[in-house]
């Protein structure tokens, strides 16, 4: 299965290379992951992305994803991409980044990840965790890592303080997606020394899995990152209502240790909690999870990820303890 994924990655990389021939500079990148979990599932995924400069300081980014899991209801390996056995366009946008006289201004148009909290694929998919935080998994009525916007996004400020606003239509991937409509996201980020803090707010159409789930979805979030001498501490606290009459509150805290003396090894640990409450149906669920693991960079673009996960609380279909192992390969080509 891993070989099949690699072959697909290579083939589509060359197709994308031809399609983006208009760019002034271009990089094509492919990533493939194959993994197994003692939650009795296996998964494979391929991502292809191309990015570079177009003209006049404008850049482009495009990404395709394919993923398959033997248990699509389990969140193992779904840190940032869908596993529905189909090819999805994840992001496709053009963007200008300008910073004259220390002022920062960016403008983006197209299809992009919802800029709420710690939202980049880089932050969720490649840091060593093989599962998304509970509050960021689309099944659990929070903010999904698979939320996407089709619209525009602007950032304004100085490097230590920026305000970002996005307005668009939900364009999510996966089997739990928001309904059609208009949504908006605002994010404020401040940076001082080793500390980065953010505040986010989103007003959106809801994910509708049952007919009585109506009304706007509104969430507020605070995110923090602190990095010093190879230790990164980060986390998010997110609260809001996924639809009328329900509330979801969740948080997670990550420790990512990559001291210089550790060479290619990065150690990771996460604690998290999510609580869902729907009074009308007398449903109240709380789940806890702890994760420890490691990511090891190997030669030739390979990376091994190992996570040990402990679950507690109201989470059906999961064993109390799981071991996830993923082998990832990533390669890049810059024909221009």
């Amino acid at each position, binding site marked *: 299965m891993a070989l099949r994924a690699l072959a697909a990655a290579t083939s589509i990389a060359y197709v994308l290379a031809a399609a983006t021939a208009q760019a002034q500079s271009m*990089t094509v990148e492919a990533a493939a992951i194959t993994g197994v979990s003692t939650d009795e599932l296996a998964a494979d995924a391929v991502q292809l992305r191309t990015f570079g400069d177009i003209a006049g300081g404008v850049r482009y980014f495009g990404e395709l994803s394919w993923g398959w899991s033997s248990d699509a209801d389990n969140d193992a390996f779904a840190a940032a991409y869908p596993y529905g056995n189909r090819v999805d366009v994840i992001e496709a946008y053009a963007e200008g980044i300008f910073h004259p006289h220390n002022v920062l201004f960016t403008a983006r148009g197209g299809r992009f990840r919802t800029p709420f909290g710690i939202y980049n694929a880089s932050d969720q998919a*490649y840091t060593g965790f093989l599962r998304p935080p509970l509050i960021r998994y689309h099944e659990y009525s929070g903010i999904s890592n698979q939320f996407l916007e089709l619209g525009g996004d602007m950032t304004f400020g100085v490097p230590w303080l920026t305000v970002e606003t996005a307005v668009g239509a939900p364009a999510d991937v996966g089997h739990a997606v928001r309904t059609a409509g208009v949504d908006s996201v605002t994010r404020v980020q401040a940076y001082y020394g080793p500390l980065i803090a953010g505040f986010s707010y989103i007003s959106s159409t809801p994910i509708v899995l049952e007919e009585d789930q109506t009304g706007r979805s509104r969430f507020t979030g605070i995110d923090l990152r602190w990095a*010093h001498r*190879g230790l990164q501490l980060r986390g998010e606290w997110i609260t809001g209502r996924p639809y009328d009459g329900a509330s979801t509150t969740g948080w997670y805290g990550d420790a990512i240790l990559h001291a*210089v003396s550790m060479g290619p090894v990065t150690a990771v640990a996460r604690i998290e909690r999510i609580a869902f409450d729907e009074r009308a149906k007398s449903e109240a669920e709380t789940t806890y999870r702890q994760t420890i693991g490691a990511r090891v*960079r190997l030669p030739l673009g390979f990376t091994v990820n190992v996570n040990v996960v402990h679950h507690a609380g109201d989470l059906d279909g999961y064993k109390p303890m799981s071991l996830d192992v993923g082998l990832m390969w990533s390669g890049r080509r810059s024909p221009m």
Partner: protein
Amino acid sequence: MRKSVRSWRNVFVLSLICSVASANGQTTADLHGTARAGDRPAPDTVVWLDAPNAPPLAAPPHALLDQRNLAFTPKVLVIRAGTLVDFPNNDRVFHNVFSFRDGKRFDLGLYPVGSKKRVLFDRAGLSRIFCNIHPNMAAYVMTVDSPYFARADESGAFTIPGVPAGTHRYHAWRPGAPDELTGTVATAGGAFAITWP
């Protein structure tokens, strides 16, 4: 009239400086060369000359290793020991630049778009630079104990400016090559060709 006197005085002073430089053996030349690997150009080859008597740096010079489009630019940077290298983040995503093997060891942590961090490369050696978040981001910083160095362009051509006249011992390195090449080169010696087998 006064302007004409000043011009002649400037010419006289300039001639005097040149004469002194020549008397001290400071005549310099630009050293041009090419780097090849077999029958192909060897871009990003780094070439430097031994210079044990080179004057020390009066102040640390600055160099730039940019982070843009999920890549380091340039992929190979050559600097003199004592240079401050700026690592600006010109991407919308966070990067975590680090170096853990030979050469300078550091970990810059996270910093957002529009900001930069700085590292002093104070000792000669090769530093391999990575991003802990993006596995395909990699660059080399070659720090040399010499003011006479150059990096070959896409065609393999390079120029070391301001080399004192005479014969010098050279070193050459390129990414992926198993060994560093060494030898001697004379500023008046014609074509300077570096060839890996």
